[in-house]
């Protein structure tokens, strides 16, 4: 346990608003991150198809997608900037106490961000200006930078859940080992989970748009190609995500038993704990089986820690279920598509498949946010797990509700801007070179 290095916030009556403001900013930014992770790979894949087949449709589609990619990247740049500012504006005690411990990760992330910004600009503004092979090569640093960026940001989140690489002596953080903190043991499962989520969200969102076009009768080759490429990425990843999710859940069960108890709303410790599907229906021993791969394993309950150390269970439990349910549905949709494509070489023709696709995009975003709510709220009341309380990390400055409201309005304006720009782009004449 440690208090803030700056001497504490005194009283901050708007701690909850500060957390909500931070949550809002993450919820706005994280879907954009997904496009940063996955869209470049999808666009480069299309460009590769063009280079291999010489079919100009692929090029036209890649060009069109790359413009949408740049719009989303620009919005991600500014919403990401808000997050960097909020780290200090809302949580100065957290930064003052631990900024040096996890800062290295953000330092590397900063350079990834640089590379992404540079090469995405060259890529998008370089169509027809650079030789085709140079142009596609420029796409790879963008993909790599997206990966490196997520690795480093996730490293910080993994560290917050499993703080390592420092000691506490006399209430001070000492013996900082930045490399140990960076490569904490949560990094790998969280990174894999988030990286795949990026492909699911970007893939299903794009497929969703084309699914809608299909329902509206636009079923030409351009729309079908867009749909199949985007959906292929998402559909291949979605089933794998179930396994990674299981890996994540088991890691949580082992390292953060109280978070697991919150996921399940398990008040008391139980041996052979059941899993509550919802509406009071329980599957006997299923929780023990899921969490530890042993039906008779003992699962710790919330009551093993004092009440002030327990996370809020309602929202955590609900978010976890939402994520799992949607994720399972998306995996099923992906399997349906892959099966049809493999056996019949075509898309399912039923209206319901395309309706499901339209829903899949927004639902994948819901699952993404629900997943982050699960892990972030599930970590409460700690900002640094079992080391620093969120209430000790917050700023002592006043005016949080005013900032919260102002930022909310700005995000509404930004959402409107993004929507208008993407609509305009979609309406531009689609030119396939002869």
């Amino acid at each position: 346990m440690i208090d803030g290095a700056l001497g504490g916030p005194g009283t901050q009556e708007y701690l909850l608003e500060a957390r909500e403001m931070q949550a809002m900013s993450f919820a706005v930014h994280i879907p954009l991150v997904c496009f940063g992770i996955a869209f470049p790979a999808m666009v480069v894949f299309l460009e590769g198809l063009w280079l291999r087949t010489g079919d100009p449709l692929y090029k036209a589609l890649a060009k069109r997608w790359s413009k949408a990619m740049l719009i989303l990247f620009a919005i991600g740049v500014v919403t990401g900037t808000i997050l960097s500012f909020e780290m200090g504006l809302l949580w100065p005690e957290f930064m003052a106490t631990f900024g040096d411990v996890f800062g290295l990760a953000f330092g590397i992330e900063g350079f990834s961000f640089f590379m992404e910004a540079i090469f995405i600009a060259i890529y998008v503004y370089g169509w027809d200006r650079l030789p085709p092979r140079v142009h596609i090569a420029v796409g790879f640093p963008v993909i790599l930078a997206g990966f490196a960026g997520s690795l480093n940001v996730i490293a910080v989140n993994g560290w917050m859940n499993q703080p390592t690489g420092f000691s506490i002596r006399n209430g001070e953080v000492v013996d900082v080992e930045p490399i140990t903190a960076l490569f904490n043991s949560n990094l790998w499962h969280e990174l894999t989970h988030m990286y795949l989520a990026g492909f699911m969200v970007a893939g299903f969102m794009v497929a969703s748009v084309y699914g809608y076009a299909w329902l509206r009768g636009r079923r030409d080759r351009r729309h079908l190609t867009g749909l199949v490429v985007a959906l292929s990425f998402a559909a291949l990843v979605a089933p794998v995500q179930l396994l990674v999710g299981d890996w994540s859940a088991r890691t949580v069960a082992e390292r953060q038993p109280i978070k697991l108890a919150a996921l399940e709303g398990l008040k008391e410790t139980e041996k052979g704990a059941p899993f509550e599907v919802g509406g009071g229906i329980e599957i006997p021993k299923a929780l023990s089986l899921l969490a530890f791969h042993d039906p008779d394993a003992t699962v710790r309950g919330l009551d093993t820690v004092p009440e002030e150390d327990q996370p809020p269970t309602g929202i955590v439990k609900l978010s976890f279920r939402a994520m799992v349910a949607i994720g399972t549905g998306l995996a099923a949709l992906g399997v349906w598509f892959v099966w049809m494509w493999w056996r019949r070489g075509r898309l399912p023709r039923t209206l319901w498949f395309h309706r499901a696709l339209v829903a899949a995009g927004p639902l994948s975003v819901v699952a993404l946010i629900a997943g982050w709510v699960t892990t972030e709220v599930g970590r409460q009341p700690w900002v640094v797990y079992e080391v620093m309380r969120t209430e000790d990390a917050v700023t002592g400055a006043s005016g949080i509700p005013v900032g919260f409201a102002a930022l909310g309005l700005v995000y509404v304006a930004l959402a409107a801007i993004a929507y208008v720009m993407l609509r305009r782009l979609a309406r531009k004449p689609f030119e396939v070179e002869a």
Partner: protein
Amino acid sequence: MLADLAMAVTLVGVTAYVVLGGADFGAGFWDLTAGGAKRGAPVRAMIKRAMAPVWEANHVWLIFVLVMLWTAFPEAFGALTSTLAIPLFLAALGIVLRGGAFALKGEAGTIAEARALGATFALSSVLVPFFLGTSAGAIAAGEVPLGNAAGDAWGSWTGTLPIFVGLLAVVTGAHLAAVFLGADSQRAGQPELVHAFRRRALGSGVVAGALAIAGLVVVNSEAPDLYDGLTSGAGLACVIGSAAAGLATLALEWRERFEVARYSAAAAVAAIVAGWAFAQEPYLLPPDVTVQEAAASDAVLTALLIAAGLGMALLVPALVWLFRLALSGRLAYEEEPRP
């Protein structure tokens, strides 16, 4: 030693952001003052063309500075962000609005939409450097004590010196932008725009120079220690260097040698940043907190500096390539249909 090195790397980031990011904000200032829809169209088109491929990369310098500060000087960072929460938050909001409005500019469907977006872009372009400038001024004025929101939430950045630095940030950004855009217009072979930016460069250059001189008077009365630093030793050398580079820039602008003026104008600004650093040395948050005291442990600084060194080795060639492509007009740019 390591702490000073980390500070130096941070200041490289600050300088890059003030020059490159500052010029992007300054471009917004000229957008604001370009005149009516028809008369201002060529100036606005040149701004869009010059900024579109590079503004995101230029913006990343700000993130770089934030990350360097919170990793190498975490307690000072927490003190800064909590005491200066208001100007920093306003700057952050301005960055969002500017990015959004810039992306959408030229996509407007009606004149009214175009005006609203243009005004948002231009106004936020002025407000961001102003608020970041006042924050820097608050540090220089010794208004940011160590602690969680320990300084005055309003008084810390609304004194004469902070407001003055805010204005200086706006004007130097505008000057840099005029010089850069003048050079871009020359490369694009648009002599009328070259003349237009020559006028703007000379005008803003004279104002910036006058403000800088007036600034010494303000510093003398508001922050005597800082004044001593600026008028002796390395600080004085930087002040003289900045003045010389500024005068050279004016002469180059007069003769429309914009390509060279890019560098002298940037040098004049870089010298101001360096002069401030030397004058304030050894303090990070005057009057009490030194760079040494505020620094993280050697293990952290070493890891960070190695990462920064490796990062720069990747970054610099990539940036050079981007700027080469952008400046030589080899990156595509679509003339947006006018409403």
